[in-house]
């Protein structure tokens, strides 16, 4: 994201005296350019120019040789006399004694000295210190120590004025080196949203700063006078035969030749400094100038070595199988969708990926004297796709992706050519190619009712405010035809404007875009706070409330709710013992999973809750009582049919989409293992068991107003003999509860006999009756009867109970199993089930005869249904 050095910004817009980076960042954030970072002054304190008066080389025991120097740091900083115990070398003069380990300087050189009190990047505070037998009263600095990086020429250790980092610089001892080297500059890094490409330049940011503060802005693009060309230069052919979405890859291509540039010339110190502050590396005059103009105006430029370029230039899509070595010396296999710049070298060769990176074959080198400068308008989508495809997010591509002012190319090449002439002695060719210049189109005009901003924003804007705000951002505002807006005579005067956005604002396309600009410029802080009065809703839906109740019921029963990621490995289905045809294997698979070994989405909650249980045990839990209410899915029927953009799909289209969607529901699952409570003065904690799991399923269902019926059933991942199938009243299977299979217990390192339950909560909720009908409360006396039936082991208690209920009929109030007995008295393979039955009539007191008849019906029904015999 762009870095804005304050002094550079100040060249285009007035900055108040002493404006800090923080203040500038705050101002910019008000108009929507968010602060990403603030870089303060890199160096503070007495960093000065010093002249090395004398030095002696002193070899050390460690093999190093150090320089003991007498340095003149200016009258303000020099000590008048040497320390008599530690005299400096040479004749005694006002100076400071400094130790230096570098050897790239001699007596008489001007160097950069950080005196005690200076703070270097790190931060690293300089103090006088005793070292190598002397007191070093400061430090002679290298570029690295000052945060400037290694010597650009790769020669020097410490900085010597006139060379390397300090090329072109000179000074007197005592001069402030912070200002000299530009180390006091503050920089704001901002975040530019994708719609505001123009703000990827000093020009754009300065404009926005003016909007935020009202300070005077000077458009640097308008300061460049583009001379009329005396004819076309290098021939350029725009021949895009495969535009993306109908937009040609290149709409304008300006080429400008500059010849006779001194290859030894360097960019001026101020330009290099600005590049560094903006986060770029100075390289050579030609490259630096193209980068500088790009940062300043926002138009990416490319310089070709004219000696290597073979005209004509063609802008086309890459050929199948075509290859290109880019500037970073990496070979790139081009995609036929890549837009390339090609020349006639070797007949037809790519010399750059348009808007992304140039090629090595025509790269400017240390010997380059003649260049062809390119400034073009490339399609944002084409550039974005190429940059992503080749993983080359270059400075150029970042700008093209967001859109570059189509009026800039000629201005930018002219400016760059001027700088090459000024600092490199180049000659700017009077000819200039401008392919596609005629097709340059600004954004289309937009009709805006004068009252529309007020209606959308809720601030009473006047007609003048609306007009001024739009003009400030560069729009042309004309009075349009009277629209459907408020009548004449209202505060805004009614009527409408016809607004033509400036060339650098391709993002302004509709009325609402303009309204945002008006609200933004006049300040979002103007917007009042008014809570709207909704017509009144129906509250939470039954399902929404029921989900809360179910979760609350389990929490009240002592379980802790947790969350888990929905991603599962392929192997989990085998681990849980699902059969090969189990529909729960039909999971949705991710194309780009977060982890390659977890490519599927859970089809049941236990698949992800069991690993969570294991994690809890690993962290020291000794028992388990946890649950989750969350989404599960199963793969749908196939690809989703596409729908149209920006228009309502038809109902038939929506139905087709719905039919192809994965099946999604919300489940509730719980895991219970180990002791249900601690051992204490009352004895040991009771172990959770299969019955608790089934009970909790019943409680969750009851909490939402539903009833579950239970049947024994084999179902993974449960113990084959200890698993309950749970059904709603209409027979729909909605879940399972019971003890987990010992293999599963082992696979997840769970406590022995860990139990679990899983319910399709949405189905349970929908099984609850909408209205619970009342049942009359009888006040007639109660009759209690007990029954014990001997049945085969295979007969379930629920079957006996069902027979009792059916047999006794109306007068049955409740039935409750109170004992299960097996043993010699009832015989091998049989069991005795004892039930307490309460009888009561709605019509009157039950007579002994009626009770006897009920008993008889009960015994008969159990005998008929399950072959049960009343135990004597």
């Amino acid at each position, binding site marked *: 994201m762009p870095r804005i050095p304050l002094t550079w910004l100040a060249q285009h817009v007035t900055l108040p005296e002493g404006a800090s980076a923080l203040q500038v960042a705050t101002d910019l954030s*008000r*108009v929507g350019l*968010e602060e990403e970072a603030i870089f303060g002054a890199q160096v503070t304190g007495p960093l000065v120019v010093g002249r090395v008066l004398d030095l002696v080389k002193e070899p050390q025991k460690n093999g190093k040789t150090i320089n003991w120097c007498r340095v003149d740091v200016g009258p303000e900083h020099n000590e008048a006399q040497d320390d008599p115990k530690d005299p400096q070398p040479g004749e005694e003069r006002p100076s400071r004694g400094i130790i230096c380990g570098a050897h790239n300087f001699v007596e008489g050189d001007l160097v950069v000295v950080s005196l005690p009190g200076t703070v270097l990047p790190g931060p690293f505070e300089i103090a006088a210190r005793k070292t190598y037998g002397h007191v070093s009263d400061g430090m002679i600095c290298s570029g690295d120590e000052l945060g400037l990086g290694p010597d650009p020429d790769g020669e020097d250790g410490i900085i010597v004025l006139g060379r390397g980092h300090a090329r072109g610089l000179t000074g007197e001892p005592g001069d402030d080196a912070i200002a000299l080297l530009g180390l006091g500059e503050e920089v704001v890094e901002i975040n530019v*949203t994708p719609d*505001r490409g123009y703000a990827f330049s000093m020009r754009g940011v300065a404009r926005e700063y003016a909007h935020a503060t009202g300070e005077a802005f000077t458009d640097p693009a308008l300061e460049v006078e583009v001379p009329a060309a005396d004819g076309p230069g290098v021939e350029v052919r725009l021949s895009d035969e495969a535009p993306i979405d109908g937009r040609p890859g290149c709409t304008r291509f300006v080429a400008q030749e500059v010849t006779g540039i001194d290859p030894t010339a360097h960019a001026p110190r101020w330009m290099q400094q600005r590049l560094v502050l903006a986060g770029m590396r100075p390289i050579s005059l030609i490259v630096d100038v193209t980068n500088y103009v790009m940062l300043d105006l926002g138009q990416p430029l490319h310089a070709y070595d004219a000696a290597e370029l073979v005209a004509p230039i063609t802008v086309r899509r890459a050929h199948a199988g075509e290859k290109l070595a880019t500037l970073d010396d990496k070979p790139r296999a081009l995609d036929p969708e890549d837009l390339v710049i090609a020349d006639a070298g070797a007949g037809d060769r790519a010399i750059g990926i348009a808007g992304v990176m140039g090629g090595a074959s025509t790269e400017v080198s240390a010997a380059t004297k003649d260049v062809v400068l390119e400034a073009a308008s490339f399609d944002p*989508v084409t550039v*974005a796709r190429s940059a*992503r495809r080749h993983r080359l997010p270059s400075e150029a591509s970042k700008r093209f992706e967001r859109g570059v002012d189509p009026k800039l190319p000629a201005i930018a090449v002219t400016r760059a050519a001027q700088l090459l002439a000024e600092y490199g002695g180049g000659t700017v060719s009077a000819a200039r190619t401008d392919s596609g210049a005629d097709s340059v189109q600004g954004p289309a005009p937009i009709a805006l009712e004068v009252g529309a901003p007020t*209606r*959308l924003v*809720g*601030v009473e804007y006047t007609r003048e405010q609306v007009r001024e705000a739009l003009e400030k951002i560069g729009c042309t505002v004309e009075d349009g035809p009277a629209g459907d807006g408020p009548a004449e005579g209202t505060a805004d005067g009614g009527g409408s404007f016809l607004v033509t956005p400036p060339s650098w604002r391709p993002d302004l396309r*509709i009325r*609402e875009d303009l*309204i*945002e600009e008006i*609200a*933004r410029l006049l300040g*979002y*802080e103007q*917007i009042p*706070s*008014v*809570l*709207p009065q*909704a017509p009144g*809703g*129906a*509250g939470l*839906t039954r399902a*929404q409330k029921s989900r809360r109740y179910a979760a*609350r019921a389990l*929490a009240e029963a*002592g379980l*802790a*709710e*947790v*969350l888990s990621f929905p991603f599962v490995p392929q192997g989990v289905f085998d681990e849980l013992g699902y059969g090969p045809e189990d529909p729960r294997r039909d999971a*949705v*698979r991710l*194309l*780009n999973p*977060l982890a390659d070994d977890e490519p599927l989405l859970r089809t049941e909650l236990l698949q992800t809750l069991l690993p969570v249980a294991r*994690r809890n045990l690993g*962290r020291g839990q000794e028992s388990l009582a946890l649950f*989750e209410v969350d989404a599960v*899915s199963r793969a*749908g029927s196939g690809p*989703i049919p*596409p*729908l149209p953009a920006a228009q*309502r*799909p038809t109902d038939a289209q929506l139905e087709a989409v719905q039919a*192809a*969607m*994965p099946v*999604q529901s919300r489940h509730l699952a719980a895991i219970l293992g180990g002791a249900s*409570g*601690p051992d*204490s003065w009352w004895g040991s904690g009771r172990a959770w068991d299969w019955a608790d799991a089934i009970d909790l399923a019943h409680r969750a269902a009851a909490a939402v107003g539903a009833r579950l019926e239970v049947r024994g059933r084999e179902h993974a991942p449960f113990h084959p003999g200890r698993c309950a199938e749970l059904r709603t009243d209409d027979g729909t299977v909605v879940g399972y509860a019971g003890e987990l299979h010992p293999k599963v217990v082992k696979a997840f390192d769970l406590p022995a006999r860990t139990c679990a339950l899983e319910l399709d909560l949405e189905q349970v909720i929908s099984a609850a009756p909408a209205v619970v009908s009342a049942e009359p409360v009888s006040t007639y006396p109660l009759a209690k009867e007990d029954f014990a039936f001997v049945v085969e082991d295979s007969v379930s208690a629920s079957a006996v109970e069902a027979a009792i209920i059916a047999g006794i009929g109306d007068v049955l109030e409740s039935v409750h199993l109170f004992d299960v007995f097996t043993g010699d008295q009832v015989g091998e393979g049989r069991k005795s089930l004892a039930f307490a039955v309460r009888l009561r009539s709605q019509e009157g007191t039950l007579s002994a005869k009626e009770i006897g008849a009920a008993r008889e019906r009960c015994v008969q029904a159990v005998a008929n249904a399950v072959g049960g015999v009343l135990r004597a």
Partner: protein
Amino acid sequence: MSETPPSPDPAAVTIDEPTIGAAVDAALAAIASAGSTAELKQVRIDHVGDASVLSRANASIRDLPKDQKAFAGKLVGQSKGRVQQALAARQAELAEAEEEAALARETVDVTVPVDRRPRGARHPMRTLQDRIEDFFVGIGWEIAEGPELETGWFNFDALNADPNHPSRSLQDTLYVAPEDSGLLLRTQTSPVQIRAMLERGAPLYIACPGTVYRADEFDATHSPMFNQVEGLAIDTDLTMANLVGTLDAFAAAIFGGRPITRLRPNHFPFTEPSAEMDFRCFNCEARLGLDHDADPACRVCGGTGWIEMGGCGMVHPNVLRSAGVDPEEYQGFAFGLGIERILMLRNGADMRDIVEGDVRFSQHYGTEI
């Protein structure tokens, strides 16, 4: 022990004041010295029982000459009454003391652990989501929900996201295989807004909480799975001022204090105008108003005085069109906030703890946050 009655002779009792008075005195003395309800029971037998002086005196009244009956009756009746009264009073006194003693013997140490079954907990994210839902229900909105596996059209196209928008890339969005499935894990709850508009039309006031997914790194503040709540209000004349009003009310409900929200211009494909919303810090001095400086070391706002809460704006006309709402008739606002972020700021929770499923994290909160 109770004192022995003065006259053992069961037959003859002289009914005169000295005799009766002595019997009463003896009874009262015995009552006073009874140390338990059991002793008192014996005193009752001895002094007002059938064999007692008073009872025998009473019985012998009917044998007295007529002229003495009244005097004797009165004397014996009143005397017996005094004794009975004293008995009742002493009985109450002793019973009370005995009950106290019995209860004292039953004293237990109430500080021993009582958690036969430890308490459970809801996940604080769910509790917070409930609370957020209740706020919106309270201002008359409804809660809308939709699937986590969504189509590209609902998650992107209908929300006016450019076909080349970077958020659609495999680096940002988790897609369903195969490549042409048209499905993804929703990256926002905004598709619920589209579904709600298609199903219910306008006017519409809904909040959409739910889980969303991004191909994000997992660290102390980020997770590839997190929860959002989005609000959408569509009506004939809703403005940005209504957006600000709703955010202010929400901030007050969730964070308390005097709500101050700030909008900063931003860009989102689905809103125009768009804004980033900041809430004034609820934690440090800054909460007292714009004229109070933030604490530079504030955990919540980092010394800026503001908390970035999410994006918002006026719904883009293309979004309304996709959802079958006429943008010339209706307009409205939308906003989105991260629920984990609220929990992190409000309660100081760590993202990893929120999603890793450690029961201790939930248990700490219980069922309220």
